């Protein structure tokens, strides 16, 4: 897929709560085609601690309004600075980067489960929307520390059944996503997951133990975003592969995780 360097215009910056913002951006021309699971490298200007671009996954593409959404967790100087953009500001974005999730071949026979943890729920929204568009019925299993960290639930609920877990028990079942009862009562044919590494490892273990196809989306620290610098590598059955170019989505069979 062709990659672009674009000056996008901020249409909305919505504070979801103290640690998360949802930034919506548009362009005078139609936005490029983007696949669920792909990401963008966003330029943060102005400070000596935000020298490199920040890789942020594509949360959703609203074709009707020609907007791309980025769900941003405020973790460091770069994301904090990005969170201050205002309507009308220009944000320089390189996208779309990486490979998206593998879409099921026969949608009528596949029951996918989309597992997201924390800000890792971001790509699951676009993936869920695409699956619905294809005629699939995705279920979502979303986990976070507490209820306030469960984001965009109203959007997920419009796409399918949503199951939640929180570590403090403030919403859904108490505990981690992999402890949710749905994993014992229901059977899924495909699992897609994104979130903290320990969570993805647990999900991958569950998928492997139950013989379910599983794709994970990784977020190793990266510089170039296009497979040039070889900084963001993950160990795979083919040796070191770049998360930015060969990923960020990998089938768990490819990874050398101890699962």
């Amino acid at each position, binding site marked *: 897929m*062709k*990659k*672009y*360097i674009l000056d996008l215009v901020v249409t909305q910056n919505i504070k979801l709560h103290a640690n998360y913002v949802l930034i919506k951006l548009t362009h005078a021309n139609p936005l490029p085609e983007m696949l669920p699971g792909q990401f963008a490298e966003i*330029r943060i200007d102005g400070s*000596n*601690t935000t*020298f*490199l*671009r920040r890789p942020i996954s594509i949360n959703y593409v609203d074709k009707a309004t020609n907007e791309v959404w980025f769900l941003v967790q405020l973790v460091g100087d770069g994301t904090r600075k990005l969170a201050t953009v205002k309507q009308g500001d220009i944000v320089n974005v*390189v996208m779309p980067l990486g490979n998206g999730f593998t879409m099921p071949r026969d949608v009528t026979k596949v029951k996918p489960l989309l597992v997201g943890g924390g800000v890792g729920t971001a790509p699951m929204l676009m993936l869920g929307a695409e699956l619905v568009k294809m005629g699939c019925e995705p279920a979502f299993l979303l986990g976070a520390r507490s209820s306030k960290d469960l984001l965009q639930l109203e959007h997920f609920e419009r796409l399918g059944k949503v199951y939640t877990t929180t570590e403090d028990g403030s919403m859904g079942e108490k505990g981690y996503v992999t402890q949710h009862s749905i994993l014992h009562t229901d059977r899924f044919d495909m699992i897609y997951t994104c979130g903290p590494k320990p969570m993805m490892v647990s999900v991958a273990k569950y998928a492997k133990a139950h013989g379910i196809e599983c794709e994970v989306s990784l977020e*190793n*620290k*990266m*510089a*170039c*975003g*296009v*497979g*040039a*610098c*070889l*900084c*963001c*590598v*993950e*160990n795979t059955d083919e*040796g*070191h592969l770049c998360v930015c*170019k060969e990923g960020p989505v990998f089938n768990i069979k490819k990874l050398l995780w101890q699962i």
Partner: protein
Amino acid sequence: MADLSVNIGNLKLCNPVMTASGTFGYGKEYEDFVDLEKIGGIIVKGTTLHHREGNPYPRMAETPMGMLNAVGLQNKGVDYFVEHIYPQIKDIHTNMIVNVSGSAVEDYVKTAGIINELDHIPAIELNISCPNVKQGGMAFGVSACGCSEVVKAVRNVYKKTLIVKLSPNVTDITEIARAAEASGADSVSLINTLLGMAVDAEKRRPVLSTITGGMSGAAVKPIALRMVWQVAKAVNIPVIGLGGIMGWKDAVEFMLAGATAIQIGTANFIDPAITVKVSEGINDYLERHGYTSVKDIIGALEV
């Protein structure tokens, strides 16, 4: 439009802008963003005799106005390059230059000999300065006699333009540059990355898997500029300047300090189209100051 062409050994560059090894992949990674033929020369990823997996993750740390990397020369080896990568890049209409790395003189010689046979590779850049590999060549780059040994050996088998990439991690870089020149190098490029380190205070651990790594980016520019200035005065072969070049103005500064051409490295990560913008910016500068050729500003610093 000013004349932007420069010569490095037998190489004719349509403009003085090149890309630094390890920051531009094999060129193809950037073809969506820039017209590769508008770049004076593309120096592809460091290539070694044998396949190298490189260092474990994490390999990168962002630092104030720069970054550290510890990739460790990950590449599939020269045979793979010849079979699989060369056919994809040989018809790109610019100077496609291979950066050759190694850990023993024989490895450099064998690799250079193989690349000498490739019609569409008009030059190599000999990397005697990688800080991220044990005996990753830097052993050769930190002493004049180590430099001479490897450059002489490669010169014997390599008949095209030979560029030697120098390490800044030395007491006197001019001594190494002179040794490279005396041993048959057609040009020297400098600087490779500066050895640095990053610590995660919360975890009380180094950020990089290798503890230390190579520093690059805007922060290293004053050091690079100083070294280019010193080396340009010390040798008679063309100097290629690199280190922290983020825009056309930096490039012009390096050329005024004595560089015949420049390389853009880390800046490619921040603006994937920077190379072409820099050559356009150099042209604007020349026109604004009434120069007809970029050669007129090489070493034109008034002191």
